[in-house]
């Protein structure tokens, strides 16, 4: 085997230990005979090590460990007897929900509803709860579901005489929710804000700047706060132990 008929793909396989022992032996022999081949292999190995080194130490991830969804979801999948019991409880829950839900629910996003329910249920034993809702999508159905579920959440805490703080933070496409000239929910947000003093709406100032650079005048709904950045705010809240729901 000579340098010429050893392809790059074959050398990559050699460097990655993908070759059978006889093929690898042939390459070793060829390397012994051919200085250029040795250089090619060294380059590949060096590059591989360089990549490994570069990702050895990474910026620490700030977001709090996975806790809340894990507590209520995998249970059903791992244990069959439990599965039956859980299914029964879920069916009862769904049945009750079905009877009491509003007709508007039919357009809601089920995944999003589950997230809200998880956030709500995980704190059921606690006296208070804190939830940050991140709206980054302009889809009106999802925006409506987010408001519906936030309202349900606030209402259920109020009925139970428990304290809950909810912060709805919008960035990117989700900014449509809080722009007075664009939002289809301006009146509703105003009413919610009046009704629930522990509900805050925040807009991401970076998204506002970007829209302004595009020549778009951003007019926010009354009583909307501005956060330095959505991600910063979310990280801050997660560090403070808040639950996070992304729309």
């Amino acid at each position: 085997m000579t340098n010429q008929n050893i392809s790059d793909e074959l050398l990559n396989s050699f460097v990655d230990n993908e070759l059978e022992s006889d093929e690898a032996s042939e390459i070793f022999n060829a390397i012994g005979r051919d200085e250029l081949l040795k250089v090619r292999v060294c380059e590949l190995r060096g590059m591989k090590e360089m990549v490994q080194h570069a990702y050895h130490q990474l910026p620490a991830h700030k977001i709090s460990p996975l806790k809340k969804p894990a507590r209520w979801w995998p249970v059903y999948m791992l244990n069959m007897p439990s599965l039956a019991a859980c299914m029964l409880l879920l069916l009862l829950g769904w049945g009750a929900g079905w009877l009491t839900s509003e007709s508007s629910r039919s357009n809601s996003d089920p995944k999003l509803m589950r997230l809200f329910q998880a956030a709500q249920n995980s704190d059921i034993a606690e006296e208070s709860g804190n939830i940050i809702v991140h709206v980054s999508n302009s889809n009106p159905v999802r925006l409506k579901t987010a408001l519906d579920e936030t309202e349900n959440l606030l209402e259920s805490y109020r009925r139970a005489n428990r304290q809950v703080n909810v912060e709805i933070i919008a960035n990117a496409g989700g900014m449509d929710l809080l722009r007075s000239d664009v939002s289809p929910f301006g009146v509703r947000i105003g009413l919610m804000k009046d009704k629930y003093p522990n509900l805050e709406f925040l807009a991401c100032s970076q998204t506002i700047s970007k829209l302004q650079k595009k020549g778009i005048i951003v007019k926010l709904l009354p009583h909307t706060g501005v956060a330095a950045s959505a991600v910063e705010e979310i990280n801050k809240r997660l560090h403070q132990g808040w639950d996070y729901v992304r729309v």
Partner: protein
Amino acid sequence: MRILSLFCINGSDAFQEQLEKIRPKLYRVAFSWSHNAALADDLVQETLIKALKNAGQLRDPALLNGWLFSILANCWRDHFRQHRETEDIDELEDYRCINETTPEDEHAQSQLVLRVWDAVAKLPVRQRQVLTLVDLEELPYIEVAAILAIPIGTVMSRLCRARQALKILLKELAPQQSAQISQLRRII
């Protein structure tokens, strides 16, 4: 919820423990794909939630690693789909912008590391995925093929192209100073 958690807390806890152990690996790969700490964490979080949700689909616990990387790859692909559908470029820019100013980025990263990150980030996404799974996780080609749902030949060709491109990019990104130094040495 308390009633539900009583039924099988042991199984779920063990599974969650396993996920937590693999989490740093997932984060490393997610970071090498996105080069963005917040986005990488978001992707890993989503991956773990999906894994918990679909735990029943994993028949052989020995395949957990590969299964999780497949979910991560899907999350990464979905991220781009969603991004395209909603033209939601701002969001990614938000992450980048924040990432640039975080202390993590500012501290203790050598020029070499930044240069490699820059070069890897410039690779086409599909090449980047293959390269990082092979180099960082040292996964066999066949496993990478399964994770990304592509033929093994495609893994090999993408890896080959990725390394060829990386070699050129690293040369391009190398500081000009070194050339001057070598000239000086020659004069001496």
